[in-house]
Each structure stands twice: as structure tokens, then as C-alpha cells.
């Protein structure tokens, strides 16, 4: 561990802990060659959600190159990336940033780093739960799980979402009973094998 000084904006620089092994770990896990990035900024210019991130996509790459693990895993960026695939499409070095973001937030989840955007992983976990149980998506269950776990909705948000839910039900856009595939055992097996590598 060493301390590295990083300028975040023109007027602000921070002392950050650097972990020289982090860059190699990230490259090995993701298969993305981050060394090729020369900070041309193309990714960030086209990123639809860069305005809502604390570090921009190009900065995340730079932080990874410098091994500034805590800054990367503690960022909002790795949760907010919408996987829109624009940056990788336009990057002159074909750096697969959305895939890198997947690797980064998976490391954060595995190492128990508190997510800067807690609602995002809660959403994704709520999304896969019905798939695990029924083999297909069951929107009502997903939404209820999300609301209960995220506890982020104000009364007003809840009312907006409830009336949206009712409007969708009226139009039969939400199924009341869960879908169910026949070979559920196959799905259970897939989850078991795929998740056996994850540490809780």
C-alpha cells in the first residue's frame, strides 16, 4: 500500500491509497486491457449517465491503472453505469468499460465494500430472485422485493409506483400468478453452479 496524489478536478487533489496488485487483478478477472487507455475522453463524452457519476468513465480507468482500489470500489460510477455500450463502441482502443464495470462491482460485492448506490445491487438481486424460483421473470415479486429491501421510496414515490402498478394491471400488463417452467431443476442447478464461485 502506498499513497498517491490524484487531481480530481482542476482545483482539488486527493491523497489516495494505492494497491499495485489491483490493476493486475482487474485485468485478469475482466480480460479487459486497461493499459491501452490513453485518456482521450471519448467514452465520457458519449456516456448518458456521466453527469450522475462521481468519477467519469475515463477517470475510473485511470484510477484502475494507478491501483487506487478504494476510490474505484467506493465510487458511484461502478453502480450507475447503465451498460449502454456506447463507450466500448466508440473507444479507439476498444476498451470494454461496461464489462469492466461488471467486474468492478462484482469485486465490491464479494469484498463487502458498502455500495455508494445501494439501491442498484438490491434491484439486480430482486430481479434474479423470481428467475431462480420460477425460471422466468415475475414482475410483481421483483418489485415488492425491491421496495422492501431498498426502503428508499418516500410515501409519494410509493403512491406513484402503486398507481402505475394498478394502471398496468388494469391493462393486464402485469401477471398476477407467477410463470413457471417445467424443468425448474435445471434452473436451480444453473444457479447453484454459477454461484458456487461467489463468496458471500
Amino acid at each position, binding site marked *: 500500500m502506498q499513497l498517491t496524489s490524484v487531481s480530481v478536478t482542476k482545483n482539488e487533489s486527493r491523497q489516495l491509497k494505492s494497491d499495485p496488485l489491483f490493476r493486475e487483478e482487474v485485468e485478469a478477472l475482466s480480460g479487459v486491457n486497461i493499459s491501452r487507455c490513453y485518456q482521450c475522453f471519448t467514452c465520457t463524452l458519449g456516456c*448518458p*449517465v456521466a453527469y*450522475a457519476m462521481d468519477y467519469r468513465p475515463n477517470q475510473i480507468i485511470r484510477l484502475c491503472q494507478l491501483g487506487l482500489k478504494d476510490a474505484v470500489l467506493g465510487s458511484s460510477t461502478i453502480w*450507475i453505469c*447503465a*451498460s*449502454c*455500450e*456506447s463507450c*466500448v*463502441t466508440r473507444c479507439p482502443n476498444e476498451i*470494454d468499460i461496461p*464489462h469492466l464495470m*461488471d*467486474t468492478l*462491482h*462484482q469485486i465490491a*460485492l464479494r469484498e463487502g465494500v458498502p455500495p455508494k*448506490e445501494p*439501491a*442498484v*445491487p*438490491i*434491484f*439486480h*438481486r430482486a*430481479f*434474479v430472485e423470481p*428467475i431462480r424460483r420460477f*425460471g*422466468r*421473470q415475475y*414482475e410483481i415479486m421483483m*418489485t415488492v422485493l*425491491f421496495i422492501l429491501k*431498498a426502503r428508499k421510496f418516500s410515501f409519494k*414515490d410509493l403512491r406513484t409506483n402503486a398507481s*402505475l402498478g394498478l*394502471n*398496468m394491471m388494469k*391493462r*393486464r*400488463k*402485469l*401477471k398476477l400468478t407467477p*410463470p413457471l*417452467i*417445467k*424443468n425448474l431443476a*435445471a*434452473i436451480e*442447478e*444453473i*444457479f447453484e*453452479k*454459477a*454461484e458456487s*464461485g*461467489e463468496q458471500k
Partner: protein
Amino acid sequence: MKYAFYPGCTQESTAEEFGSSSKAVCQKLGIELKEIPDWNCCGASSGHFLNDELTHALPGRNLAIAEKQGLDTLVVCAACYLRLRSTQREAKESPEFRKRLAELIDMPYEAKYEVKHLLDVVVNDLGLEEVSNRVKKPLKGLKLAAYYGCYLVRPPKIVAFDDPENPTTMDRLLESLGAEVVDWGGKVDCCGGSLVLSRTEIVLKLTGDLIKGARDAGAEAMVVACPMCHSNLDTRQSGKDRLPILYFTELMGLAFGIPKTDSWFKKHLVSPFNLLKSHDLI
């Protein structure tokens, strides 16, 4: 033309109108669909978010079953399309990947067949002449903005039937139905996708920009090929002046004179009835 058909979860719930209109236009065009038996969810954006193996095993099971059917797979949802295609591509390129996938899904998968999107099949394989030949009720005077979003065109290493920055497949299809297509800058911009519950205000900003962009270009409705985009755009508009969001297959059905199209349009939160009536289309 015969395909293994992967409907995807939303086609039986939030995007039921996309599913039924897709099936109806395929039947009209002589595209035979054999539903993949006992298909499962592809994992959408959450599979790859959480787990690199889950993201391939879920689509992989569907692809392996479709391979037993001996057919190319046809997909209508843009998000499922990217997921299935990404697993198919990786499997095609890497024997190691195929081996691990087979272990995960307990079935062999050789990636012998292709994964195609309905837009690609209709415009590039079947051809627009076949489409315009079937038009009974041209969509004359209807001004539309074709919205592709992300996964129909990106990343081009995996999905590659059109230009990633300025695609035209859907524009040409809508023109062949007799509609007027507007030129606009939002074609491949992102709607915010799965951030809709976790960071709702981001999705509201992005969809708001898209709707404004389409309207400023003169569009009376926006046309989509993705249930996620549809839901983000259609269900969260507020105010009096709302922009109808339509699936390309619904417009094909309307132009082909398929009966009972109103059962599809009734499902929309932003009702397209007034617009369609004003052009004598319904």
C-alpha cells in the same frame, strides 16, 4: 422461413402487445415460429451485473434447446437479443467457453445456429418488397421517430446488422409501410434501462430528452423494438401532451390490415387511439 422462437418474459406480461403483434405479422409474412420448449429468462441486465457465469448459462440453456430443434433462433426483444447473441458468439469462438457452458447447463451446445432479430429478418432476409406487397392500409401522413436504443446496434462486435451510430433498418421498414419518418438525433441514445427503479430520476431525464427530441423533429409517435425502452418511455410520461410509443410490429400489423389491432393499442398507458384516428387508421 422457419425459426426457433424465443419470446422472452416480457412478451407474456408487460409487453404482451409486442408478443402478439410479432406473432401476427410473422404469420402474415410466412415466417414460421417454433417456440423454444420450456424456455427460461435470459437474465437481462441483472445476470451480467451479478455473475459472469449466470449471464451465459441462462441464455445458454435456451440456445442449447433451440439447437436440438435444428433451427436459427428468432428474437424480438432487443435486450434478449443481445444476451442470446453474446453467448452464441462466445461459444462459437471458444472451445473452452463451450466446455464450461456445457457443464453449467448440463447439455452440449455447439453454437451451430444463428440468433437473429425480427427487424433483421424482415428487412434484410425477407426484403422490403415482401413487406410493401402486403400493405393494405398505408400509414399515410403518420410522422414517426424510429428509436433503436442500445442493444439492437451495440456493441457492434456482437450485434451487427446495422450501423451503430446511424441505423436505418427500422426507418426503411416504416417507410415501406407508407409512414413518414423524421430525421432526429436520438436514435441510438440510451433510455436508462434498468436504473428505472433504483435511480428513477435518471430514467426520467433520459426519456424526457428522447421524447422532446422526437417531438422537436416533428414526430407524432416514437417506434421501438425493446420492451424495456417501451416501458420506460410509455409508463412514466406526465402532463396532457403525451407521445405515443409504439412497437414496430404493431404498425406492421396495422398496415397489413390484421384484425383486432386495437387489443394491442389498448395496452398502452399513453393511448395512441386519437393519433391513429386522426389519420383514419383505426
